């Protein structure tokens, strides 16, 4: 699975980590959020892994795992549907792991799937976006747009062959997209190029 490949790449390569960090940093900046996270699916373990975090929980959460069969991120990964939770003020344990790790329970969140070949490979969450973007389906569309861009960048990161079987970058064949400074620069550009567009959209 491409999610496994991305996780492997980000564990080994500082540029890969930079790409994922860029995804969450930009998402957080766009929505004025307290935090943003990328979870990737570990299919074999049946778990979701905090792969990158920006803002609250940044130090504690990366690498943490929890079962994919629960929580908002689990739902989004399983259903492929984005979701907005507008008001968690009664302390609902929507994702207990986050609360336990950081003592931080957001009041609202937006979560969208990262899709590759019609499958969710992970989830992008934005916690406590600024009030004017809460409860707005327009902004959910924007986050989905951004997630699509991020998933594209992740595909560039790991490469794939024509049969649709993701392979680790270390084994990529000549002529295929390969992990390297140029490829990563392209991937980073893909992620960051949307920033201006989204900021423009939000301000109109």
């Amino acid at each position, binding site marked *: 699975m491409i999610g496994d490949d991305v996780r492997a790449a980000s564990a080994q390569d500082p540029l890969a980590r930079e790409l994922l960090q860029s995804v969450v940093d930009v998402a957080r900046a766009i929505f004025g959020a307290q935090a943003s996270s990328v979870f990737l699916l570990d299919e074999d373990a049946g778990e979701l892994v905090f792969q990158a975090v920006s803002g609250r929980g940044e130090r504690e959460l990366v690498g943490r795992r929890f*079962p994919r*069969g*629960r929580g908002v991120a689990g739902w989004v990964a*399983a259903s492929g*549907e984005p979701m*907005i939770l507008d008001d968690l003020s009664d302390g*609902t344990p929507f994702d207990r792991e986050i609360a336990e790790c950081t003592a931080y329970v957001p009041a609202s969140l937006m979560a969208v799937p990262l*899709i590759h070949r*019609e499958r969710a490979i992970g989830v992008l969450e934005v916690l406590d976006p600024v009030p004017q973007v809460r*409860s707005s389906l327009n902004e959910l569309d924007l986050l989905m747009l951004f997630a699509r861009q991020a998933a594209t960048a992740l595909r560039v990161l790991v490469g794939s062959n024509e049969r649709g079987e993701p392979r680790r970058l270390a084994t990529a064949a000549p002529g295929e997209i390969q992990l390297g400074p140029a490829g990563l620069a392209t991937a980073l550009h893909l992620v960051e190029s949307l920033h201006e567009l989204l900021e423009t959209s939000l301000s109109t």
Partner: protein
Amino acid sequence: MTESGAGLTWRLLNRHPDDIVVAADGEPVPPAWAWGGASGQGVRVCVVDSGVEPGHPRVGPVDGSWAAVSDGTRITVQETEPGDAYGHGTACAGIIRRVAPDCALYSVRVLGEHGSGNGDMLLAGLRWAVRQNFDVVNLSLSTTRLRFLADLHAITDEAYFRRTLIVASAHNSPIESYPWRFASVISVGSHQEDDPDLYLYNPRPPVEFFAPGRNVEVAWLGGRTIRSTGNSFATPFVAGVCARILSKHRRMTAFQLKNALYLSAANVRVGTGGPS
């Protein structure tokens, strides 16, 4: 994933009921006739989703719980202990209960077993529900995978002729998914009005109806409530209205019920013929 066609409307954004007034022919069907005084009593509603939490005060009694289970080669639907790993099915059930307080609620879990969830499970659970002759099936889920299209089409047509109403949620993003796209189901998206009992007909389908889907208070895990936004929560509202209509008009067919919904929608003005 297939991107949306140009101009299609997945939900009602930046427009209001007065912006989408629809002139219709036929005899008026006022809500008072359609479902006034009805509570859903005697109508069996099945929530095909992530399960339903037992004992939730917003949900009340659940009369049966099943789950789609895979043994690696085939999927069967088996009776199971009630429960919900995610909260989504519980949220849907709570909305149905609010709208149709006396209906009989049932649950078929197709997501959540070990975190799995795919089109095969959805198809198996939906097919099973249709063949149990539930009156209404709430499906706040869809699949983007084209390989399920033919089977889903067949089972939704089967439901239509069996008088099982499938009320299906449009995807929360403007992308193609199924089975809400089919004419044999009642498809639902969100409007952004504050009236919790307002529903509208969409003059530009494939989404046929809009119901409350923004900042909706929904039942959630642990007997609690949260506020959430999405087409998922507009759909059970319409499922509940269908249950109320059926409890009052037990012999209605699927096409009669959709017509009653259409003519009762708040933005539909029924005239007496003439040029459109």
